[in-house]
């Protein structure tokens, strides 16, 4: 659907995006694009949409105007009600658009129709754009920080709703976020960006195996715990946690047994995007410094 051979975006003299390795986005993919602020996530989207000038070779099987996009910031006029705004975008009355009627019901948005955009809450504003974006029925949809500005529960609920809506559809979805937990149940592939460059791209499970091993055990960081698990292989983790990597079933059993013996609470997982990305980034930085 989209094949990037190389892609560069400059903001003045600053190289904001520098993709050198081939990337392919296929039909039906559920891709999470992750990275810290300034990693180039939104710049990549803007380059693909032609919003910012870019250099490189990108092949797209879908016309730009067919791509549906939920931008990070979506503003609308405030001089008329949301209903008329939606009808202008749809080019028809809401009642004549069964998909939108269903989406309004699905997102519990009916009461917001008579309000103006500036009278909507943060969550309602996000839902408005979501309804309009989803109603485009596009083969390729980008969601850029769709949950920004929302509280934890609203974020989770919104992602769940999006996931539910697209469950049986073959649209390609790209979810740009810096909230890793949003992607745990949503993304099948991950594109990890840092400082405008690609750290890695691939299947979520494959990336986890590559950087974390078969499974990891996550425990709280403390001096006591560090002493107990010192003989196990530790990988990078956020400062308040420790991650123990198991390469096979035997190692898993040993770690689990030790943790149980010492009454240490743990989480065993074979999918943790945050810890995977921390380790991917560390390895990438090491390799870059050696280049």
């Amino acid at each position, binding site marked *: 659907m989209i094949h990037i051979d190389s892609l560069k975006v400059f903001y003045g003299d600053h190289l904001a995006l520098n993709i050198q390795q081939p990337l392919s986005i296929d039909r039906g993919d559920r891709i999470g694009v992750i990275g810290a602020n300034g990693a180039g996530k939104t710049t990549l989207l803007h380059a693909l949409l032609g919003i910012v000038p870019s250099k490189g070779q990108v092949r797209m099987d879908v016309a730009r105007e067919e791509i549906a996009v939920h931008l990070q910031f979506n503003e609308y006029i405030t001089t008329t009600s949301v209903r008329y705004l939606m009808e202008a975008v749809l*080019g028809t009355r809401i009642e004549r658009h069964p998909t939108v009627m269903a989406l309004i019901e699905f997102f519990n948005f009916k009461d917001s129709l008579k309000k103006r955009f500036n009278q909507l809450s943060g969550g309602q504003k996000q839902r408005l754009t979501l309804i309009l974006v989803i109603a485009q029925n596009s083969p390729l949809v980008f969601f850029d920080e769709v949950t920004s500005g929302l509280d934890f529960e609203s974020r989770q609920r919104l992602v769940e709703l999006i996931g539910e809506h697209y469950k049986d559809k073959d649209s390609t979805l790209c979810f740009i976020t810096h909230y890793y937990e949003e992607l745990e149940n949503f993304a099948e592939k991950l594109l990890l960006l840092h400082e405008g460059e690609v750290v890695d791209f691939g299947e979520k499970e494959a990336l986890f195996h590559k950087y974390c091993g078969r499974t990891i055990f996550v425990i709280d960081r403390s001096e006591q715990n560090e002493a107990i698990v010192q003989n196990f292989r530790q990988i990078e983790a956020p400062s308040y946690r420790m991650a123990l990597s198991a390469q096979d079933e035997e190692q898993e059993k040993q770690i689990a047994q030790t943790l149980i013996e010492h009454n240490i609470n743990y989480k065993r997982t074979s999918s943790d995007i945050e810890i995977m990305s921390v380790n991917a980034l560390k390895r990438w930085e090491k390799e870059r410094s050696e280049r």
Partner: protein
Amino acid sequence: MKKMSKQFLFYELRNLVGNWYIPFFGVAFPIFFSMIIGRAVLSEVPKAQVSMVASSIMLSFLNLLPLAVVFLGHCSLYSQELEKRIPLRMQLFGYSPITQVKARMLALMVFFTVGLGVDMLVMSFTLKPLMPNIRGFFIVVLFYYLMGAILFMLAHGIANFFRRFGPAYGVSMTLYFGFMALGGMMGIRVEQLPEVVKPLSRLLPFSYAAEDFVKIWQGKPYNYAPFLQSMLFLCALSAIVMLLSFRYRKTKAY
């Protein structure tokens, strides 16, 4: 890309009406101002000339419509929208920049036509101007539409250049009152303007509309050359501003 729908046109119309300063400066303000100035001026005019002066006042204040509705209205609305990146949002929903501009132009034209009709009707009752010659009437109305088209380019250029409401509104307001003053619509007639300002006033079509249109309105012989030159000058100036803004922003539409 989507074509302009009826709903999109209504959306643009609601957007125009919803911004209070467009109906206020474009429809209510000319009526209000013409009544105040009309009352002051007409009381001092010999009876035989009252209708002619009343016509002159009406035609002069109808000048405010393209200025307020199209120039001020589009400049302020569009700069706000650009600042909020609404045109980009609409483009991503499938409306090309050209379609968006066309819809805005059409909505302005509808609003302008209604406003012109209302203003003419109300002023006909309040000022009691001369009945127009049919040809003269159409020439005058055509002028207002042409002026609207020219001022649309100027407004588009200013809004696109700044892409922020504050500076765009400041510049457009300054020009609005400047055009009014130079066109003899601020209580000082063109011949009463300082000598140094008069050539500038004659360079712009507003002064002709205020001073000479009464002749065209009545169907009297009129030398159109200076007036057409002033129209061409403003048209060229507006086109240059618009094209420079496109060049500056490296875009063809917004």
